């Protein structure tokens, strides 16, 4: 509870410190605008036109339906990876044999291109939710697994010994010694896993489904509707930035505070 209050208390200052980041986003948009002037509106619509399209799109209920479908798939896939990735990773970290054994398997999972997984999943599950969710899981699971594994592998033995010699009760040992350390590894892994899930869900939808934002992207592509395409991209990037910078980053900062 104290932890949450601290995050909320620091939140306004955290938000205010974001002006520099906003400035660099605007610089990026300015470069985008130059691209529009050089290559024309068909190739690259102007930022202003894109944002106007976006506003009209967001007033349309069917667009929200597509967004919800995508959100559902991403969260189911990511949620399953989060639970199993963290649990299995933590467990594997406690046993040296398990970590040695799991390493190459993770490399195989990470090394396999997501597009190949999509193709396989389309053969296994057909066109639909399962294909997308499966692809999301295989893409984000290894990231979370490795993070959790590192978290337990790198636990400081001296600290463990100290906790033992002071005869700390198990709950103190867990919340004050192990948890902050493990969490500081697992949490960043969740963040990158989420980023991966959000990207993969769009790609899988584009190739394997007829609904969701990825499918809308495919439709706008076939109609050469570049403003809509870019507006969709803005929604994807915007929502990812919102989750990452507004929700996760403040938590991450608090979690990692003990490190300095």
């Amino acid at each position, binding site marked *: 509870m104290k932890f949450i209050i601290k995050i909320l208390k620091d939140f306004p*200052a955290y938000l*205010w*410190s974001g*002006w*520099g980041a*906003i*400035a*660099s986003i*605007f*610089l990026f*948009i*300015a470069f985008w*605008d*130059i691209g529009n*002037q050089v290559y024309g509106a068909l190739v690259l619509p*102007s*930022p*202003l036109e894109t944002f106007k399209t976006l506003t009209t799109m967001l007033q349309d209920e069917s667009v929200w339906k597509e967004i919800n479908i995508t959100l559902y798939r991403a969260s189911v896939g990511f949620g399953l990876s989060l639970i199993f990735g963290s649990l299995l990773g933590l467990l594997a970290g406690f046993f040296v044999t398990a970590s040695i054994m799991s390493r190459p398997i993770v490399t195989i999972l990470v090394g396999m291109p997501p597009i190949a997984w999509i193709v396989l999943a389309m053969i296994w599950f057909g066109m639909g939710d399962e294909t997308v969710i499966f692809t999301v899981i295989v893409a984000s699971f290894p990231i979370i697994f490795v993070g959790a594994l590192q978290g337990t592998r790198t636990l400081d033995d001296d600290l463990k010994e100290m906790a033992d010699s002071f005869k700390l009760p198990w709950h103190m040992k867990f919340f004050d010694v192990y948890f902050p350390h493990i969490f500081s590894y697992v949490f960043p892994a969740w963040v990158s896993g989420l980023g991966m899930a959000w990207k993969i869900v769009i790609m899988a939808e584009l190739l394997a489904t007829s609904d969701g934002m990825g499918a809308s992207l495919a439709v706008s592509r076939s109609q050469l509707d570049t403003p809509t395409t870019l507006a969709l991209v803005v929604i994807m990037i915007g929502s990812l930035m919102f989750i990452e910078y507004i929700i996760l980053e403040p938590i991450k900062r608090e979690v990692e505070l003990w490190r300095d």
Partner: protein
Amino acid sequence: MNDNSREESNHANNHYLYYPDEKDVPTYLAYGFRPIFLLLPPYIVISMILWALVWSGYLNIPFMDNTLTWHVYEMLFGILTAGVLAFLTTGLPELFPGMVPFIGKRLKYIMILWIAGRVSFWFIDITGVYLTAILNLSMLLWLIWFAKDVVLDKLQRHSSLGYILVVIFGIETWFFASVSGHAITPSLDILKVALGAIVVLILLAMRRVNMESVNELMEDKDIDDIYIARPPVTNLAIFTVILFTIVEFLYPDSSTLGWLGFAAGAAILGITSDYKLKDEFILNQPFVLYYASIFVMLSIGYTLMGWDLLNEDIYGINHFRHFITTGGIGLAYMMVIITIGWIHTGRNLTSSIYTHLMIILIIIAAFMRGLIPFFEEYSSELYLWSAIVWTIPFLLYMKVFYKFLLTPRADGIQG
């Protein structure tokens, strides 16, 4: 004064190791800022009255048939040289403790040069543009020569101040070349470039003033923390302002410029995030809010200019620019003369109803002037009243600070 008592006094009071042993230096020439702060506020008041008479037609000064250009010129360069003179002659001996303060007779001659520059400006139709050019350019050139230590400093800690002054000198030369027919660039466009350079100078100078005085303020009030104005934050703001200025010169109507305006607005506002300290809360200190208001006004100016460029229904970019000039730059000068007026006359930074009013009235004047596009029907009243409201703080300054400027330092130190 012995070393012990010098150590006891706070750090901005023991800035120079040597004080020149010139005899019979009158108090008003005892340190660089004194004569300037005695002359600049009344000059601003008088020139605003003169402008009011010129614009309303009671006073006939044709200004080479280009009154607007020359109005902008004087508000930018005429006041700038005085502000920079005060900042450099007061600040450099503090940044470089081995430097001998610039006082007495030599200070008097430089002040006469500045006054001559102002007189030649108002009589430009009689004395001609070349005299004005020579007097004003030599003033700036002298300032650059005076600041040469900054550039020659091996550590290059403050060299950016020197370089930007050289750039401003180049722009002023370019301006005079244009008005005298030796360059084809429209003089008003050059003045917009000058404004960008001056904003950069102000960001650089304010970073130093800010850090020095906010930390001193905290020391006075026993607030145990340290304020650091991080250079990268200021540099990002400077980068965006330079980009905006260059693009505005080359492509004044481009939509890209609009986004750059937003970028500059956000980057400048970012400077205020450093006021959030690690442990202590200082945003309840009036002086911190005063300094922050400079960046807020500059930011509003660039953001509104950006918005104007992206919005087809509104044409007010030069009105919005007054948030930068009337607002940001006006506040920056005000804060420099208030800060130096307290600290370098041997006093603590003190806020009162007068300092509150000086800042608030400038902000109100900037809003009155900058928001004219939204209140077109009252535009003539707003032009007049914003000028009047903007002048009052300088009258208040004279009331509060003249007695300090005309008497020796309160702590007995020379200067």
